[in-house]
């Protein structure tokens, strides 16, 4: 396959960026999208040019590092992570636009690499259960109904890649935040911090400069782990409940 790539190049956070055009040849349809970029980078290095910087690590769809907007879609045309996208999803002769996640809360570090530490700070605000090591009761002391355990797991699957933010026209982090809140709030272990968790995490999410939800559903469409849009509804419900309860205290 022969492809034309238009790639966002930006030297660092303070520099201006622009799209640059590259041609790549001999691309196998069995290559992953990132292996295609590896091929480009090998050529760039040997040609004395700066290779394209992009985040990647596990390359098996679980670490959440990879983060490319491909032809306007976060993680590209398939519902998966960029690293699990294969070149068989494209046609010989295609022109492919590759851009970084765009959000003011995710400033560009270099080329296609962005700073997603805002997500870490949202978790730090309350995305945990306080259970210091050693203080745990016997694991079977509190049975958890299977539907609740499954519900928690489905939301815990979030890999924190940020595709939801990249896809949302408002750059909102509601899907990410709601996934963690739903995961922890449904569990009996998460009950003691149920209210503070949602209030603090939502406040931090606002603080980071993410937009609000207009329920376009773009986040859920882009999510490689299939976190559903209704997750946000669940968070809203938890937030209202917590606001009511904290008002009474």
């Amino acid at each position, binding site marked *: 396959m022969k492809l034309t790539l238009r790639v966002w190049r930006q030297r660092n956070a303070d520099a201006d960026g622009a799209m640059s055009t590259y041609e790549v040849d001999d691309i196998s349809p069995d290559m992953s999208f990132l292996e295609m970029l590896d091929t480009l980078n090998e050529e760039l290095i040997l040609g004395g040019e700066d290779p394209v910087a992009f985040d990647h690590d596990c390359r098996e769809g679980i670490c959440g590092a990879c983060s490319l907007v491909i032809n306007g879609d976060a993680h590209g045309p398939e519902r998966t992570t960029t690293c699990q996208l294969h070149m068989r999803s494209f046609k010989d002769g295609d022109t492919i636009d590759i851009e970084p996640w765009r959000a003011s809360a995710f400033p560009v570090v270099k080329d296609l690499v962005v700073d997603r530490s805002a997500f870490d700070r949202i978790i730090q605000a309350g995305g945990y259960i306080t259970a210091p090591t050693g203080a745990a009761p016997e694991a079977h002391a509190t049975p958890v109904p299977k539907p609740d355990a499954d519900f928690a797991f489905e939301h815990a699957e979030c890999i924190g890649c940020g595709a939801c933010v990249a896809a949302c026209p408002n750059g909102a982090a509601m899907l990410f935040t709601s996934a963690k809140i739903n995961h922890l709030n449904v569990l009996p272990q998460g009950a003691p911090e149920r209210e503070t968790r949602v209030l603090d995490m939502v406040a931090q999410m606002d603080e980071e400069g993410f937009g609000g939800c207009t329920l376009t559903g773009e986040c859920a469409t882009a999510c490689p782990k299939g976190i559903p849009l209704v997750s946000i509804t669940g968070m809203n419900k938890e*937030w209202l409940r917590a606001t009511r309860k904290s008002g009474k205290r």
Partner: protein
Amino acid sequence: MTRTMWDSSVGKKTVMAVSGLIMLAYLVVHMLGNLKIFFGSDEFNEYAHALRTLGEPFLHYEWALWIIRVVLVAAVVAHAVSAYQLSRRDIKARPTKYVHKKPRASYATRTMRWGGIILGLFIVWHILDLTTGTVHPGGFEAGHPYQNVIDTFSTWYGNVVYIVAVLALGLHIRHGFWSAAQTLGVGSRTRDRAFKTIANVLALVLTVGFVSVPVGVMTGVVS
């Protein structure tokens, strides 16, 4: 609690949802009242008068109406201010646009924003036209709403403005009602279809109901 509500993006959405639902409830009643126009001028004018004597003898003349007006104005203001602030926040959150554009992404958001602005302007015109009569075509007569309505819908622009606004309203309700359900946390996977259906039915019924009046005037059913 009020502070949390107003300071949070989720809280502001709640304000929008609640104020939107208040306006929606009003619109249903308003639309039903409008339909009385098909039963002749007496019944329609009588209905308009009844609105002013609503709650008597417990309430003084027009008090009920003013209470409703105050609540509605509060709802409109809360809805608009929240929308404005949230929109600004949303735009600020995505300062650099993607080079590769995807139109579908912002469809719902765009229709809500532009639809909202259209509806805001329409409300002003609608009040100046049929409540105060300031911009009414022909002689506005307080207490004779039947004739006033016919006057308005006898002009081409009156029909155009009204019909465009009602269509915008339909689209607004279609996304807005479902959206409010999600914001208020009552949506769920199992109820999602139900809420979407209710939203569509509400949007359709209100659109048809409201549009029937100018159509009635235009076709001469109402004269």
